[in-house]
């Protein structure tokens, strides 16, 4: 990878100005997965026949397992806990009934995810009924309130650490929109009141509660019945909470998975439009390469002592190359120039890089056709407006977004971040949704534009002089068009999680191997390469015909034959090869004239000339470079003397 991944993920916090505006973003997450395990969660989720065994419970478990895997790779310092409620058995520190905290060895209840946790959790369904069991926790005639208990347990788990340096979340998975529907009267209102109070207490402690409803095929999940009050939704937000009653299980999974992610913004950006008027934007890294190897900087690789397998501590020290003296971090840098060293202080260097304020400044607009395919250097950054600091930002942003999108224009701006000040293009992206939810969020993508220093003109390297380059004729283009139609990937998409067309194979394999080793499995896992072309599809007669037609049209009838002849001609014509061959041949002839063994035994090799020595070397295809002594010793070694 050409760029330092740390640079991309870092919060660019070295800029004191931005730090001032930036509310402290916590970097670590503490998450409690609170999963409803009532019998209702085990009814098949859809009526469709092809996947009738998939209950909401199964969907939730597989989503959480997937999320844990992502966490262990990307944010392995996050701490998680998995907690079921409406269970037959109970297991929790408070000894409350109907709540079961799932855990494995060598791990606290709320702790970093381990390979073993993921493995055992993925298989939990096999043993769930026998070991944990499912039953309704809130029934009339009993004063037990399993939801209340569950929130209590979760809150107690999250008491660890301070909210200053960790984000604390409870993710509540359920398909019951009216948990107190079975009971009536004063008990009901009382229970609702206490449960909501419990949730509010948790929220006041800085814990956010998020609801991830999985709906049933026939009914919508109605948040207004109870949960709106519990998680504190206002009327406006409720409309966003409508879960589509999708029949397709994959869609439900995709929706759940998307909701489980916490949006982490990388930066807050001030976008100045004109005359000192600025709005506030949040920047998100929606697309960043996940780099498995050579990840030394972020600590994915550490050095171990191969004897004890314990991690090693590295100590850096700076040493003066001239005197060997130990020095503290030197304050100055130098660049050789004009036979001398030109010295710079760090302040001067950062002053040079400061060509603008840290803001994003609008320069103007251009039609989208001005943005060429080669105007790219790094992954894009997503921008979404933010009304927290400056009210009215969103309105201006939406107005500009709509205009740009309708007029097919993009904005050119200068982003003066201290790390890499750059000209950027801002492209308005309209929202795209599918049955699995939002595919592309609405907002703007910020793309770093190259400078003239960054653009190369390789295509002009081999320009024909005083001649026009051949161009395809209409017939050839037509044949190519037919081919294009035949080899069409209809629904190609890079980003549908539910349907990962493209997986980073090297990464998959990397972590599959790590997981196997971490668990002590002997078998090395096999990972299938999904990126190879569809050979079967390519071998279909229509495709083959189109290909053949096209080939004849651009290459002519006898291409393969000509190519073979060309190759044959090449191998005989090559001058250098001929010469080499000739040398070896003469060497072999000449070589036969000498009694090499005798010469070597009598130490008479040194009396021969270098040319003579080289006969032996060439004839035995040994290197002929070096001084006479080197040649002699090489001959002796070869003869085994």
């Amino acid at each position, binding site marked *: 990878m050409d760029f330092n991944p740390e640079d991309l993920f870092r919060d660019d916090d070295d800029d004191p100005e931005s730090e001032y505006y930036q509310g402290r973003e916590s970097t670590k997450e503490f998450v409690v997965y609170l999963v409803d395990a009532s019998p209702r969660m085990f009814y098949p989720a859809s009526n469709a026949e092809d996947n009738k065994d998939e209950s909401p419970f199964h969907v939730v478990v597989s989503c959480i397992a997937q999320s844990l895997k992502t966490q262990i790779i990307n944010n392995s310092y996050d701490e998680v806990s998995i907690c079921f409620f409406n269970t037959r058995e109970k297991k929790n520190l408070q000894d409350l009934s109907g709540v079961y905290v799932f855990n494995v060895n060598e791990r606290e209840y709320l702790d970093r995810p381990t390979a073993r946790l993921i493995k055992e959790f993925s298989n939990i369904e096999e043993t769930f009924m026998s070991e944990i069991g499912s039953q309704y926790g809130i029934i009339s005639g009993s004063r037990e309130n399993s939801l209340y208990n569950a929130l209590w347990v979760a809150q107690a788990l999250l008491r660890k650490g301070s909210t200053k340096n960790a984000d604390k979340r409870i993710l509540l998975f359920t398909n019951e929109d009216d948990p107190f529907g079975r009971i009536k009267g004063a008990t009901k209102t009382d229970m609702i009141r206490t449960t909501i109070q419990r949730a509010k207490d948790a*929220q006041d402690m800085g814990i956010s509660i998020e609801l991830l409803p999985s709906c049933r095929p026939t009914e919508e999940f109605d948040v207004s019945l109870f949960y709106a009050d519990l998680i504190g939704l206002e009327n406006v937000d409720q409309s966003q909470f409508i879960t589509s009653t999708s029949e397709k299980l994959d869609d439900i999974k995709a929706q759940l998975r998307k909701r489980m992610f916490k949006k982490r913004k990388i930066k807050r950006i001030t976008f100045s439009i004109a005359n000192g008027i600025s709005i506030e934007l949040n920047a998100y890294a929606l697309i960043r*390469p996940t780099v498995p190897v050579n990840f030394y900087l972020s600590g994915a690789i550490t050095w171990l002592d191969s004897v004890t397998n314990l991690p090693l501590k590295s100590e*850096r020290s700076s040493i003066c190359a001239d005197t060997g003296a130990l020095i503290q971090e030197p304050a100055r840098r130098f660049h050789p120039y004009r036979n001398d060293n030109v010295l710079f202080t760090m302040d001067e260097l950062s002053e040079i890089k400061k*060509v603008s304020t840290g803001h994003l400044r609008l320069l103007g607009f251009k039609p989208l056709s001005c943005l060429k395919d*080669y105007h*790219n250097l790094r992954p894009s950054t997503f921008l979404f407006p933010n009304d927290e600091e*400056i009210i009215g930002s969103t309105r201006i942003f939406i107005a500009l977004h709509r205009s740009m999108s309708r007029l097919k224009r993009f904005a050119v701006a200068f982003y003066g971040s201290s790390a890499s000040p750059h000209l950027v293009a801002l492209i308005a992206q309209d929202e795209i949704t599918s049955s699995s939810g939002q595919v592309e969020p609405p907002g703007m993508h910020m793309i770093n534009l190259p400078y003239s220093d960054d653009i190369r003109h390789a295509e002009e390297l081999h320009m024909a002089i005083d001649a026009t380059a051949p161009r395809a004729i209409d017939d050839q283009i037509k044949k190519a068009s037919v081919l294009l139609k035949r080899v069409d990937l209809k629904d190609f998409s890079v980003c549908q999680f539910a349907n990962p067309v493209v997986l980073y194979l090297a990464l998959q394999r990397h972590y599959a191997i790590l997981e196997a080793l971490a668990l002590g499995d002997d078998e090395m896992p096999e990972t299938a390469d999904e990126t190879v072309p*569809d050979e079967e599809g390519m071998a279909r007669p229509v495709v083959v015909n189109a290909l053949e037609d096209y080939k004849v049209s651009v290459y002519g009838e006898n291409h393969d034959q000509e190519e073979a002849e060309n190759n044959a001609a090449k191998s005989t014509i090559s001058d250098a090869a001929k010469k080499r061959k000739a040398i070896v041949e003469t060497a072999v002839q000449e070589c036969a004239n000498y009694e090499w063994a005798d010469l070597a035994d009598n130490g008479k090799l040194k009396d021969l000339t270098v040319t003579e020595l080289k006969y032996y070397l060439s004839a035995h295809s040994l290197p002929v470079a070096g001084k006479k002594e080197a040649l002699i010793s090489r001959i002796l070694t070869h003869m085994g003397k």
Partner: protein
Amino acid sequence: MARNKEALVLLLDVGPSMHSRLPEIEKLSSMLVQKKLIYSKSDEVGVVLFGTEDTDNELTKEVGGYEHVVVLRHIRVVDVNIIDALRRLPKGTASSDFLDAIVVGMDMLIKKFGPTNKGKQRLCLITDALCPIKEPYEGTKEDQIDMVSAQMKSHGMRVDCIVVRENLPGAANQTVMDENDLLLNRLSKKTATKVIHVESATSLLGALRTRNISPVTIFRGDLELSPLMKIKVWVYKKTSEEKFPTLKQYSDKAPSTDRFATHEVKVDIEYKSVQDTEKVVPPEQRIKGYRYGPQVVPISSAEWEAVKFKPEKSVKLLGFTDASNIMRHYYMKDVNVFIPEPGNTKAILAVSSLARAMKEMNKVAILRCVWRQGQGNVVIGVLTPNLSTLDNVPDSFYFNVLPFAEDVREFQFPSFGNLPLSWQPNEQQQEAADKLVMMLDLMPSGKEEVLQPDLTPNPVLERFYRFLELKSKHPDADVPPIDRTLKWITEPDPELLSQNKSVIDDFLNQFELKENPKKNKSSRRLWREKPSASNEEKEGAQNDVSDIRSNNLITNSSSLTVEKIGKLTPVQDFEAMMQRRDSPEWVSKAIRDIKILILNLLENSLERSNCEMAIECLGALRRGCILEQEPKEFNQFMQTLYKTCKDRNLNHFLELLLSKHITLISKEEAVDSDVSDDDAKKFLVKIELTSQCN
């Protein structure tokens, strides 16, 4: 000549029409030489000026003619002196003939290197090509161009030709310009010549690649459409970020008498075991550990080699898809270019036909690439057609890397349609935005595209190398402020802003921005984090009452720091100060200050603009006093003001008061007021009478 060594002759037009351009040409050419000094020290450079008063070149001595062409420097290995010479280009007085200059430059190269030595030879011509070239002694101008290009071709010379023209005064000899352009095009067709037209100073600075990087292929081999059909291609980098140079750490430990000191700093890393911090673990006893959650899995490099993913080198087509399926923001990295194998007509035709078909049908190709044997991963990317605009350059493809599913984070964002109504722009606002997006145009018709990436230099690098040159002469120099030409890259063009002032003002007046006073960072309750719709509406209502729509725009920075009311933007300053909540003092201070300001303005009320500003301030004060429930402050002030006006016969001001209907604050507007609605109206009548009496 060494393989990558280049001989370059700069042909610089210094004729009268070029004088305004000389500062940029000086910067560009000295930057070019400076980079050679750093990155390719053995390159050779010569400089020819034309359009000069004098004549000094070998050809004129040998055969005559070639007037007004001066060889400033013969072809020699780059050194420091040449930069100094390029920094002070003389202003010429004569008409400049670029063809003479080309011939002189070519002659220098031929004489220096002869017919046998075909290293890299380049001419770089910077001119405005506005002066007619002289009629040759024999044949036509075209014949001369043909002769020159034949010579160039036989010696393998390349020409970079930069034509600088901007805002031509009238049609400054259109015929000459057209003729010259035709001649240059003829040259470019017959030789390896690239002609670039630039207009602005900024794009002149970016018109030439100042650092030569010898291009290297990433891949040479087959682009496999299928096992049946392959196309021979070479892959190069199209873009690659030129980084800020890495500077070495400087050690000042060596004695100053040591002339051979390197002053470098070596970094030494020692690995020590955790239990025994004294013990250094030797390299052979170390093993790599890979993190997996809290566990660290030790894997030796040999083990890793055995299990790791090892794909075969190949570039294969996965299929074609609609261009609209690949969003522009998926492009992950720098861009590659696929060119057909040079000289291979079949490959050129195959690429050309495929590219043209893709362009016609608006399709792109998805590829799976393994550039090198032993590369640890595969790359999935998109191939887009690049149809050549030059006759002698074959068609090619651009290649962009696409993300894998793991690289994409699918965050959910609310639809704009679902956001509260108060966050949605209304029709007028949308119209103002449309106008802004159309009018703030960087692609004006009939002119060059502003800030085209291909012609825009990196301001940071530009600044660094200039400072390097400065510091090498004056070690104590401070970093100079950013250059005007570079400012056009980092800041909006003031000319464009002033041309569209009304559009921008209209846009800004349509929208109101407000610092959120209720932002409470300590509360983390989810529904409090965002300002909810209800309190947004309340604020909107307040604004309506006070009718301060048009003036309510405040900037983030000013509202944070306003501590006194200035004369430039008194109304904004006042409003910002009234909104400061860090101390109750601010409101009374704001009221006090603006009163003083109004009285001061009236002192000098002979200027009409002062009167108008005073009225505006008074209006702002009135609104502020209503908002802050301070009606008495205002009413008392009005009385004083009335008295002052009456005493000093400030009729004009009183008339303005009338026309704006500024009167006392009544009970209905603010409860604390002791003025009734009627009294307020009477006050206006009183003013009217006074203004007439006087």
